[in-house]
Each structure stands twice: as C-alpha cells, then as structure tokens.
C-alpha cells in the first residue's frame, strides 16, 4: 500500500508478467515460439527465456511459429506463439491455411504495439491495432483482450478450449506487462 501511494496512477502495475507466465504454464504450454516484441519483451519474453519449464524457440519470422506449432500439435505438445501484431498481420496466410482451414489449436499471444490501454483495440489510436479484432472476427478466430491483471484468468480457459475443440485462439496483450 505504501508503495502504491508513491506511484502516479499510470505507474501502478496493472498487468503482471509473472501472472501471465504462470497462466501459460498452467495451460500446459511446453514450447514458446517467438519473435521479440517490445510490448512483451521485458515482462514476458525475458522471464520465459529463463524459465526451465518452458522451451523457447526463437524464430526469424512469425509465420514459422504457425508451422512449428502445427508440427508440435501432431505430437500432442502444446505451444504458444508470442508475437507482435505486425507479425500476426504478416502471418495471415499461414494462420488461414493451418489454423483456420485445418482447424488446429494454434495459440497466439499478440502484443498490441502503440495501443492506448485506456481504450479498446477497435478504438486504438493506431490503425494497425484497430484492424486486428475485425480481422480475427472475419477469420472466425476467438480472441481475448488481456489488459489488466483481472484478464489473466482468461488465458488458461482460452488455451484449454482451443485444444479441446481444435481451433486457433488469439490473446491480445493491451499494455506492457511488468
């Protein structure tokens, strides 16, 4: 409480990276496939790289994540693609073919670079962010906004459902996790 009192409202920790990592592990994710994203760099990617329970595969381009995750799916191994929204846009054809048309549980955690977390992604000041949810809707991909600690509880059910029903899912990270 004393620490909180010293912080301006926008300095308060609103989204704990440690809680997200715990939710990823609770979802039985074994592999994290990633191209670095400044939104999730410090709060997620660095701790994941150090975590002995998760195997981080660094890829050169985000659509590689979709192919690797699919290969792992055939082996009953769970994977999460940790990417930026620009990488999601670049990977649309791979997601269309592998995740949507073949109905595979491709799980994506997508950093919304430049998003104002005080508004919704559809009303984001950044064009690239504004189009993400409409694109996901058009592709029939379920998506969930992870903007505050209260949203972290959505992660495990979303991933479990993706694997149970064999469909892709997108978890949109609306602010930089601590």
């Amino acid at each position, binding site marked *: 409480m004393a620490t909180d009192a010293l912080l301006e409202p926008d300095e308060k920790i609103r989204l704990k990276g440690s809680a997200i990592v715990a939710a990823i592990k609770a979802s039985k994710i074994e*592999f994290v496939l990633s191209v670095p994203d400044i939104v999730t760099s410090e709060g997620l990617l660095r701790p994941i790289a150090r975590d002995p329970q998760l195997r981080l595969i660094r890829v050169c381009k985000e659509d590689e994540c*979709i192919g690797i995750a699919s*290969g792992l799916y055939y082996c009953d191994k769970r994977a999460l693609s940790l990417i930026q929204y620009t990488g999601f846009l670049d990977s649309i054809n791979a997601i*269309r073919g592998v995740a949507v048309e073949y109905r595979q549980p491709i799980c994506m955690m997508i950093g919304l670079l430049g998003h104002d977390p005080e508004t919704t992604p559809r009303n984001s000041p950044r064009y690239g962010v504004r189009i993400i949810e409409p694109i996901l809707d058009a592709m029939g991909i379920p998506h969930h906004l992870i903007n505050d600690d209260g949203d972290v509880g959505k992660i495990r059910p979303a991933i479990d459902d993706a694997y149970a029903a064999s469909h892709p899912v997108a978890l949109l990270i609306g602010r930089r996790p601590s």
Partner: protein
Amino acid sequence: MMKRDECFRILARHVTDEIVIATYSSAVDWLELGERPLNYFSVGAMGLDSSHALGLALGRPDRRIICLQGDGSLLMNLGCLVTIAAVQPKNLIHFVVQNGAYEANGGHPIPNTAVDFAAMARGAGYVQVHAFSDLANFAQQAGHVIKQDGPVFATLHVEPSKPLTYDYPNLYDAGRRAALKAALQQ
C-alpha cells in the same frame, strides 16, 4: 542432372518409420510411391514445410523427420535455415529439390536459378550439408544421408519434371491429417 521422381524412388528404398513432409510437386511424386500414414502433406501455406518439420522434430525426438521441400518453398521461408540450425535437431533431414521453377504455378523460374542453397545452409549452421546432381552418387549416399545426426541439409539438383496432376483435395484430405496424428500416438 537428375529427375525428382528418380531421386524419390531411391530415397524410398531407405525410408521405414520416418515422418516424410512434402508439398506440391514433391508431394505428388512421393505419393506415387505409396500411401503411408507417416506422410505429411498438409502444410497449409507455401514455405512452411520446413517449419512443420522442425515442430515434428522437436515434438518427437525419437523419430527421424525427412522434409522434401521445393526451391520456391524454401525461398519463401529462408529464415527457417537459421531457426533450424539454432535448434540443432539431430533427427531432421532437410532436402531441397532444386528444379529452378515454380512448377506447380506454371513453371516460371525462381528469381535466381543458380542460387546455392547448400552454401546458405552451411552458413546458417547445419551440421551436415550435401549437394547432389548425379543420380548414381545419390543412390550410393542416400541411405547414409538420412541416418546422419542432423540437422542435415541436402540439395537435389533436378530438371523440371513431366507435367503433373495436382489433386489437392486428395493430398490435403482431413483423413490424412487424422491418420498421421493417430500413427504418432501409437
């Protein structure tokens, strides 16, 4: 110069319980040699065959994975060479079938038909790198190549093949995907 179907007939003599990933023209020629549940044709997007192969190699380190990738496909996903080399999967054998053409898309040439994929793989960090353009030599080496500790890379320099019939609904049938998954759960 070799022919792709001739190379695959030689390769097939050595394949037993390996998972074989192939797309487009390579998938058509490989399927000609026989149906098997451990064939994986459903890549979903051009260029991703090698990434699917890496996922399988990571998920099943007890099995050997053979990727039969076209040169046009590899050009769409050159970064995979660096990713695979970084992971160093011992069980991955990555063939690129270099015919210099987008054969399934009208036979137009790739941007540089003289590109040296083996040099790229070597520079990326593949452990074993080969290039074959003589069928007798490939016949002599094929069994050894697919048993090496990987990641293994091998270019097969081939001439464009006879016109093929691409039965994509059959190649990418959901039943094949289910058969592969079932086979991997045994």
